[in-house]
């Protein structure tokens, strides 16, 4: 019976967030601090010919100007903190100005004169691939990776820019919903016999699709404040992660790991755009060093749109073969990704979603990621998987209809299970219980009953839909660190960032569970690296629950082993003769013979060595080594790298069921019901699970119905830089009585049974809503994400509206 796992608790930062007392990076001030502001590119593509900052530098109160010349050069295709010669999107930072007040800094920005040379630009990948199409960069238009892609959110390394054009026939084909024969791709994989798969198919569907990227628009714009003392940089940053920043940021600043103190008490959203250190951080830290005074670099809401990253878009084509028994026999998938100014797309992840949803007997994927002169693109909640889920769901419904199969039954027939695979390499998973989730969801939602209800009521028409969201949900090999203090209290050191999901706190419960310590006797130590925090994963990719319940568990196991060793040495017998309970370590044969945790911790300090952190395992990360060194001699130290055996990707899967009522006069719809069931192993923290499920469900509505980039193809200017213009859904756009649940079957490769679930919550909602919209319109396929009000009205009115142009970043 778990004491902590699966039980609600209040994470320690919640009161501060409710009262407003908690501090974000922008709230920190320092004596002598100056304010820096950015000057950004006014044009989508050009060359900086000359910068004249002399008038600004003569202003009272201006203390300095910082340009790319003050930073190490970043050759293409890197995303430089400040543009050097070429600018490649509107809003790209070119320089920073610092002054004694924000008002002066802003005024100074207006006094700087930059001479530009304009270049051709492009906002649509297919236009760039067309013969004679413009290239976003002087070097070309396509990002080609020369080494394996890093984890989500990682900077692009091992890549080059190439100039690739498709023959006009391939362009014409993809624009008309056909396979772009002759088009060159940069990523390809396949498994199974595709020809045989299509030959076996009782039905084949072939569809084009387009998904449009949109900004993260994190509520907290990425302010940073940095100062230097005694050779150390103290950096207050806005980040999803904590320890995952240290190594990269230290490199940006050219200092040793031990000379960086990264501070991040709380973060106002990141959604994938703040997983690790982003280029912009280099300006704050280095500018502070150059000026030798604290620098706060705050950006505007508009600049958060520019440099805060965005989801990649897709223009694609898919062909799916289905056998008479409902099994998907073949999938052929083509994706042209819109990589924006940074070039990286998520096509491979999109294809991965297809493998999870269909477990096809054969599949081919071909992808290419094209630069456009739009904002940088990066990981955004379920990058690739979720937008694929949104456009795939109605197609899946069409495939099911083609063989007269119920839509839920079709998904149950095909979806991933514990013996299944994910991705082009057909890698294993730790466990999967999606079929159980589909059955549970269909019961909770009342799928059969809702299908039997009348569909039309005056101008209103009902639609019901089902969808699946998937994302990998866990990592391995990170470190756990904790300390039992001389008073017996348990201090759990967490390098997990506080990105707003509270997973930093939920994962610490694993240590309390293992050591059987009451929660009120535990304290989470986190938020700044000089508190001695271990090496941890970045808080992206839904990994944290799986990854760091394991690290805290192994650290606790190390502490338990040390408790037993100490007790055996002091009280006799072998370590194996001892057990723990009630904050004591005692002989299993005679519970009166034992030590309290407090006594054991005091003995650890006396014994020294591994017991109190003077020695530590060889395999822990250098950052964890520093943390242990900092804690040495202060109690009993539990520290270990997660070497728990096992293999396979832990999957996070959510199934969603949606019912809408669409008004055919206005194209608007109301979400009458939404039910979502997660397959995420044991639910570690129920309240937080519920929050994640609801938040993701809300954003899924944004993906399917509202949010998109809009650029004017005539001048490359973005139309919707503001939060309200980008239209994330509001409480009035979603169903407030959403029903959430979990299969709650433990994952065998996690001692607590948990897996992550953050990202697929959005994909399931987006997919289920897209499926419901299609159902309301008698199976019409828009093949777009988003499908906005105007598209629905145009369809209903019979206005000419074609998805097959695959236009992106525009209306």
């Amino acid at each position, binding site marked *: 019976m778990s004491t902590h796992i699966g039980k609600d608790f209040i994470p320690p930062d919640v009161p501060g967030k409710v009262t407003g007392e908690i501090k974000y990076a922008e709230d920190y001030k320092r004596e002598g601090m100056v304010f820096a502001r*950015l*000057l*950004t*590119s*006014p044009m989508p593509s050009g060359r900086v010919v000359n910068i004249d900052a002399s008038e600004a530098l003569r202003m009272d109160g201006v203390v300095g100007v910082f340009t790319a010349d003050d930073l190490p050069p970043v050759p293409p295709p890197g995303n430089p903190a400040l543009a050097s010669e070429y600018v490649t999107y*509107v*809003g790209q930072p070119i320089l920073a100005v610092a002054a004694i007040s*924000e*008002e002066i800094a*802003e*005024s100074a*920005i*207006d006094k700087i004169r930059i001479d530009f040379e304009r270049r051709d630009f492009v906002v649509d990948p297919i236009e760039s691939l067309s013969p004679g199409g413009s290239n976003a960069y002087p070097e070309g238009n396509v990002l080609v990776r020369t080494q394996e892609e890093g984890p989500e959110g990682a900077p692009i390394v091992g890549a080059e820019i190439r100039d690739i054009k498709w023959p006009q026939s391939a362009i014409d084909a993809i624009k008309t919903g056909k396979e772009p024969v002759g088009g060159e791709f940069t990523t390809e994989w396949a498994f199974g016999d595709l020809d045989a798969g299509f030959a076996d198919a009782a039905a084949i569907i072939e569809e084009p699709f387009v998904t449009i990227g949109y900004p993260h628009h994190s509520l907290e714009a990425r302010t940073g404040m940095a100062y230097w003392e005694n050779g150390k940089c103290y950096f207050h940053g806005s980040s999803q992660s904590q320890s995952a920043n240290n190594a990269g940021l230290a490199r940006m600043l050219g200092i040793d790991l031990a000379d960086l103190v990264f501070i991040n008490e709380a973060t106002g959203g990141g959604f994938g755009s703040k997983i690790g250190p982003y280029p912009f951080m280099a300006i704050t830290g280095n500018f502070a060093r150059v000026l030798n005074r604290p620098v706060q670099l705050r*950006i*505007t*809401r*508009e*600049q958060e749109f*520019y440099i805060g990253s965005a989801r990649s878009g897709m223009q694609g084509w898919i062909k799916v073969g289905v056998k008479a028994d409902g099994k998907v026999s073949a999938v052929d998938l083509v994706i042209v990704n819109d990589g924006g100014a940074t070039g990286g797309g998520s096509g491979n992840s999109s294809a991965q979603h297809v493998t999870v949803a269909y477990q096809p007997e054969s599949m081919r994927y071909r992808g290419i990621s094209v630069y456009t002169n739009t904002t940088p693109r990066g990981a955004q909640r379920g990058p690739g998987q979720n937008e694929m889920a949104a456009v795939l769901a109605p197609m899946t419904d069409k495939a099911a209809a083609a063989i007269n199969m119920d839509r839920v039954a079709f998904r149950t027939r095909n979806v991933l299970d514990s013996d299944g695979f994910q991705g082009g390499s057909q890698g294993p998973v730790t466990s999967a219980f999606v079929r159980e989730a589909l059955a549970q969801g269909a019961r909770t939602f009342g799928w059969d009953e809702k299908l039997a209800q009348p569909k039309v009521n005056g101008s209103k028409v009902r639609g019901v839909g089902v969808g699946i969201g998937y994302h990998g949900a866990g990592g391995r090999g990170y470190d756990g660190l904790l300390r039992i203090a001389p008073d017996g209290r348990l201090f759990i050191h967490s390098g997990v960032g506080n990105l707003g999901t509270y997973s930093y706190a939920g994962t610490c419960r694993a240590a309390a569970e293992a050591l059987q310590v009451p929660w009120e006797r535990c304290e989470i130590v986190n938020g700044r690296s000089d508190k001695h925090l271990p090496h941890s994963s970045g808080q992206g990719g839904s990994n944290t629950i799986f990854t760091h319940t394991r690290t805290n568990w192994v650290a606790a196991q190390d502490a338990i082993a040390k408790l037993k060793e100490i007790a055996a040495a002091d009280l006799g017998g072998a370590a194996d003769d001892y057990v723990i309970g009630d904050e004591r370590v005692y002989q299993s044969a005679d519970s009166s013979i034992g030590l309290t945790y407090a006594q054991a911790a005091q003995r650890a300090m006396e014994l020294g060595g591994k017991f109190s952190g003077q020695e530590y395992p060889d395999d822990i990360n250098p950052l964890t080594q520093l943390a242990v060194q900092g804690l040495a001699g202060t109690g009993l130290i539990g520290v270990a790298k997660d070497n728990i055996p096992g293999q396979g990707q832990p999957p996070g899967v959510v199934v969603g069921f949606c019912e809408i009522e669409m008004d055919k*006069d*206005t*194209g*608007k719809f109301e979400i009458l019901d939404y039910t979502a069931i997660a397959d995420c192993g044991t639910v570690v923290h129920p309240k937080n699970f519920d929050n994640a499920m609801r938040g993701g469900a809300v954003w899924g509505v944004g993906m399917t119905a*509202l949010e998109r980039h*809009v*650029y*004017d*193809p*005539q*001048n490359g*200017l973005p*139309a*919707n830089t503001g939060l*309200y*213009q980008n*239209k994330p*859904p*509001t*409480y*009035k*756009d979603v169903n407030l009585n959403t029903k959430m649940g979990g299969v709650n079957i433990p994952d065998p490769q996690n001692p607590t049974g948990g897996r992550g679930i953050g990202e697929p919550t959005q994909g399931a909602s987006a997919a289920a809503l897209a499926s419901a919209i299609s159902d309301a319109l008698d199976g019409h396929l828009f093949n777009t994400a988003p499908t*906005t*009000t*105007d*598209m629905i*009205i*145009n369809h*209903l*009115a019979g*206005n000419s509206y074609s998805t097959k142009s695959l236009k992106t970043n*525009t*209306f």
Partner: protein
Amino acid sequence: MPSHDVMPNMELYQPVQVEDALAIADRLADRGWLVGGGQDTYGWLKDRAKETDAMIDLSAIESLRGVRETADGIEIGALTTLTEVANNSVIQDKFSLLSQAAGVVASPQIRNIGTLGGNVSQDVRCWYYRRGLSCYRAGGNLCYADTPQGMNREHSLFETSRCVAASPSDTAPALVALDATMVIRSVDGERTLAAQDYFVGPANDIESTTALRTGEILTTVRIPNTWANATFYFEKVADRNVWDFSLVNVAAAFKVSGGNVEDSRIVCGAVQCTPRRVTNVENAIRGQAKNAATAESVAAMATDGARALAHNGFKIPLMQNLVKRAISA
């Protein structure tokens, strides 16, 4: 392009009497900027898309607030917040069309600050113009939106003249439908305009959306009893159900007798630079049964003369459907 969000330096005047405000506005003339709730002010100024030497903050003038019953209707102070307009019992009782319209403007937070005067006097939301581009409305010599590739989904169907920006107000069509009168004061005295004439299209003045002249302040909105307790219909269609501008809205008032329409005023917003009365529809339904059949028969007339741009063609069926619903409801 520089991006700002700090208020620039400027003079600030905070009069507490309307006479003082008028004197300051007269003295400052083009150098001054009137602000009530500020919801269409701070963005312009913080973005540096527009600038001013001096701000005249009217928010402390109590006489410009509140709702008063008069012998032949009601008067609403221009500084009355949209929340107050939406919740006022007299307005709800007699002119619920305006309550409904005010109640769906933007978001609760904005309605708590934004004023009726500001909502009807706000500038257009064309994103090119708001971005500070030198379009016709901004004193330049081209329209960025009215091109085959322009991103003009939210723009106008009618009465475009160099500028295709649409009226963003939800309360303006309601006031036109209610035959409201706008009371305008200056140091030279008071003048009144029918709401219908308060709103100005680009053919008449491309740099202003209202008939307000330099030095003038909209002080009061009068609504006569002419349409009190009529049969009303208001509907707003926007992408989002809150915190969004209308794609199209409709405000309609009907006098119905024996099931037939004696008279009506049907006004659509967000389809041209000013609220658009569909007088041809009003004429066509006079004396006809107020029902679905009549609505169906005249709906297409609502968009007579519409010229769709590249991306706003959806507004034609949407406008027709909203007019149809107004009549058939």
